[in-house]
Every structure is written in structure tokens, then in C-alpha cells.
């Protein structure tokens, strides 16, 4: 079930856990880019809709994927999402799953993030 267990390429509408100041945009589109069976979280790459930069991946509006505005997939706010939230209607609602060739393009963008060299 794509909504209960995030797989790479799945897009969710993730709520920021209100532990401190309210985020200006509490809900963000985020795509699962990595997950581990032994972890309690999966790694999410966010999609921003303002101030995209040269090293972000442009993401045009796509109604089928429930991406309602142009935006950018960005490494800047890469972070962990709790697995126990996955699929929760208000905290982490499943939106869609990337299909090829877009799935490879987005996951390759994640792989090309600044990272240690072998």
C-alpha cells in the first residue's frame, strides 16, 4: 500500500510537527528518497514553490501527481519523516507516486546531492 509505507518516489503532503514556532507553511510536498527497514524514519526531499536555485531540480506543475504549482525539488531541507505518520490524513497524506522517467530524474537529483566522494 503506497500510503502506509513510503517507498522511494512516493510523494506525501507532510505536516511539520508543531514543536516550536509554527512553520510558515506547515504542509509541504515531500518525496521519499531513501528508507531502511530498521529505521523509524524515511528520508524526504522537499519541494519548494518559491526561490528555486540553480542547483535545485525544476518541477513543473503536474495535476496528475497533485503538484498544483511549479516548484523545485531541493536538497536544502532534506530531513527525516516519522514512519508512524505515513499515510495519516492530516500529518502525512499520500498524494501520488512518481512514474518513469520522472522518478529516475528526481531520485538521480537526490543521488547527486553534495556528498562524500569515494
Amino acid at each position, binding site marked *: 500500500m503506497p500510503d502506509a509505507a513510503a517507498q522511494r518516489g512516493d510523494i506525501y503532503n507532510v505536516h511539520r510537527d508543531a514543536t516550536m514556532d509554527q512553520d510558515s*507553511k506547515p504542509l509541504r510536498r515531500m518525496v521519499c528518497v531513501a528508507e531502511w527497514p530498521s529505521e523509524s524514519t524515511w528520508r524526504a526531499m522537499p519541494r519548494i514553490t518559491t526561490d528555486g536555485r540553480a542547483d535545485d531540480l525544476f518541477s513543473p506543475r503536474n495535476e496528475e501527481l497533485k503538484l498544483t504549482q511549479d516548484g523545485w525539488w531541493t536538497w536544502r531541507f532534506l*530531513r527525516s519523516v516519522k514512519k508512524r505518520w505515513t499515510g495519516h490524513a492530516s500529518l502525512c497524506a499520500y498524494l501520488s507516486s512518481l512514474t518513469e522517467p520522472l522518478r529516475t530524474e528526481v531520485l538521480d537529483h537526490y543521488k547527486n546531492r553534495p556528498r562524500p566522494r569515494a
Partner: protein
Amino acid sequence: MLSLDRPPADVTDGDLWREGQPGDLAVGDLWLLSWDGRALALALASGVASDYALVWPVTLPSEIAFQPAIEVPTSPLDTRVLVWPSRETGVGLHLFHRRFGTLLRERTMALMIKAGEAGKEPPYPYAPPRSDDKQTESWDEAMVDAWEDICLNVWPKPLPGETPLNRAVLRAIGVRPSNLAALLGVATSDAAGLFLGETNPTHEQVEALADHFEIGPEELLRTYTDEAVAELIRPAWKDHIVAISQRYSEGEEAARTRLRTEFALAARATGTTRDRMRAALGRLLERDRR
């Protein structure tokens, strides 16, 4: 809870903890993050960009840890540490406070990433499997929440009254000078100035637009970066900003704003940005002492 001044029980070298080691931010380095005079977390740099870095959280042996965290037997803190590549997080450079030295070589980190992706054993052992108890669950929740807060701590924050509206956002939500005038109850000429970014909206105007379009207030404002921000975001300025914060009894955001303002007041001064910023710092620290 970590402290800027007192080393944790796991760390015996108090001087290293309080002073750190000189050096620029580089992949493989262990750093202490802080904001507002509070230590936030230990972090291992895994990728460095112009105004942020990707990091792996690092925890100490006295803290709860579980697979897929990896146990690294030695560290610049002279204690083993746990690194969490599975929780890689983007962190603004303004949070990097104190460097402790190189923790891992890039090649070792690359092998850890590869092991995680391929489901194989990493170069160092995994921590024990996670225990299914309330204390572990509670600690885990707190760690994830804390790192989300760290990730989302941005500087500078766009502030109404100091930042123009983001024209691209206005266009995307269907705002034009004509309907902006009607929405805010201002003259068309004033609306045009706001729309073009020639004047900054007030807090009330931003709130009114945010409410009407059901969009976050900060989304409406332009992200503002200038030469002062690009300079002050560098970790090398952190201790100086803390000094201003203490000198003027204010938080870190206010201290950074104070230094930017002082820098801007001497806009005609010659020298590099760094030289002029140092001069601005000097003036602020000497003020009212004479």
C-alpha cells in the same frame, strides 16, 4: 542536553569542547551546532554548499542509539560516537558554531552510504537493534523533532516591514497591482510600489494577504540575501555574533541584525566585505565602553 560551556560527561577535554579547533567546514568534520546561545546537537558534515550543509547527526555513548546508527570507535572528542547517515539533514551554515576536528574520511563515509543503500555491512559496526520500549520511542521522537527544528531554522527570516513582497509568488496566486490595491485598501500607486518591490509591506498587510490567499506569511516575502548575509552566515563569525548577543543582551537573530545594520551604515567604507564587517564588529563591541 548539550551545553556550550560544560563538556558532556563522555568528553574529558573541556578546553576542546569550549574552544574547538580552527578550520573551515569540510566533509568529514565534527561540529557543534548552536543557536541563541544554546548548543543544539553534534553533526558530521557530509556535503557542503554555499549557505547550508548536509550533515549526519552524531550522538554520544551515553545517549540511546540503535541500528542503523553506526558506532565509530574514535573521535576528536576522545570518545566513541554514533553517526546516523540514515538521518542526513540539511542545516543552515549559521548554526555551525564549534569545530572539533576530522571524524571520518570521505571515503569511509562513502562506504557507509553504499552499505546502507545495498543493505550490506558498513566499515564500522551498527549499533544494536532498536529496543521496543517507551524510553527508546520517546528518545527517538525527540531526536527526529529536534533535527526537524534544526533543519527548518533559517536565517535571515523574511520579516514584514523589512522585506519586499515576492513578485513571482504574487503572480502565481493571481495578484496584480489593481486587485492588490483593493485587497489592502491602498491607492493604486502604493499597490504598484508594493507589487514591484519598491516598498516593503507592513506586518498587517502581509497578514491580510496571507489570510485572504490562505498562504503562509513568509511565503509572500522575498528571500533576502546580500553581501552582509553571505559573509555573516559563515561559521567563522559565530563566536563574534555570540559576543554581540552577550554585549547587548539580545538573541542571536537580533545580534545578527545589529551587525548587518552597523555594516550597512558604513556603506561607503573601502575594503573587502570581510574587512568592513570586522570594522563594524569592532565599533559595536567598543561602543559605550569609552
